[in-house]
């Protein structure tokens, strides 16, 4: 009886270890956060910029690490050093705008277009920086 319990215990421990290994080293590598699966805060690029310029700490509490659906005019389109497409949206008259690195480039757009992008807010440098952006239209 004791032997049986010992064997069941060892098997159980091995299963837990295997599940933990799978979650940490396999599942977590293959599954990254996907903004498409999250509900987002809708805001214009002008209002988002104003929020960070007015009070960065308060804006961080509200928007940092959140999924945001931001609308604005395209000011610039570039590629970063990892060849990911980036877009700057906002207004040419503003000192700061919204800088987004895109993960999905299936929707085409050009400078001057008004676009809606769903992305994750990383914070504020010289612009408000968003990542993993998906252009909705």
């Amino acid at each position, binding site marked *: 009886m004791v032997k049986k319990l010992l064997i069941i215990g060892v098997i159980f421990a091995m299963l837990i270890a295997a599940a933990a290994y799978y979650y*940490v080293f396999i599942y977590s590598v293959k599954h*990254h956060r996907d903004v498409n699966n999250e509900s987002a805060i809708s805001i214009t690029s002008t209002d988002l910029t104003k929020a960070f310029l007015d009070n960065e700490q308060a804006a961080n509490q509200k928007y940092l*690490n959140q999924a945001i659906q931001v609308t604005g005019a395209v000011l610039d389109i570039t590629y970063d*050093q*990892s060849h990911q497409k980036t877009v700057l949206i906002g207004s040419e008259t503003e000192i700061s705008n919204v*800088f987004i690195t895109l993960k999905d480039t299936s929707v085409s757009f050009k400078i001057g277009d008004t676009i809606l992008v769903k992305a*994750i807010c*990383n*914070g504020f440098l010289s612009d408000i920086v968003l*990542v993993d952006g998906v252009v909705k239209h």
Partner: protein
Amino acid sequence: MKRVVLSFCFIAIGFNSQAQQVFATKTGQLFFNATGGDVKIAAVNNQTDSKFVSTTGQIIFGALIKGFKFENQLMEDHFNENYMESTQFPKADFKGYITNIKEVNFTKDGDYAIKVEGNLTIHGVTNKVSTEGVMQLKGGKPNIIGSFKIPIKQYGIKGSYIGEKIASEATIKLNCKY
């Protein structure tokens, strides 16, 4: 009269070659590596903001902590929540000078060894740092490449695995094309 005009032209060219330029990028790269054991603990930040002034050598870098992307999402979450506390301290920055900027000839392409000194703020803690790097000039456009080590605990970062699975000194590599 001719001599005077020629002299004036040379002086004007001389002034022009030393004209102040501000170089900037929003997409510089920072590579972070704190591997202390068998498991790779490494990330890249592709949205590093940087500017420098060609005449004074004044240079600044800014990076958002949440901008560091790991291959492993769980590792990225732990990095942000348990170690860097990125909600409380969302950014890191460096403010300093390229102390030998006068040795860089911005009108001539090539590789120039540079020395950088300044204040690095991570996790709300500021320390003086100095390091060396290379400024590559190609078509007049600079690319700064460098590497330095950060003693993690000097920046008030705490965690049970530091010094074991996580190296006590993280290596930061920089590659910024302006």
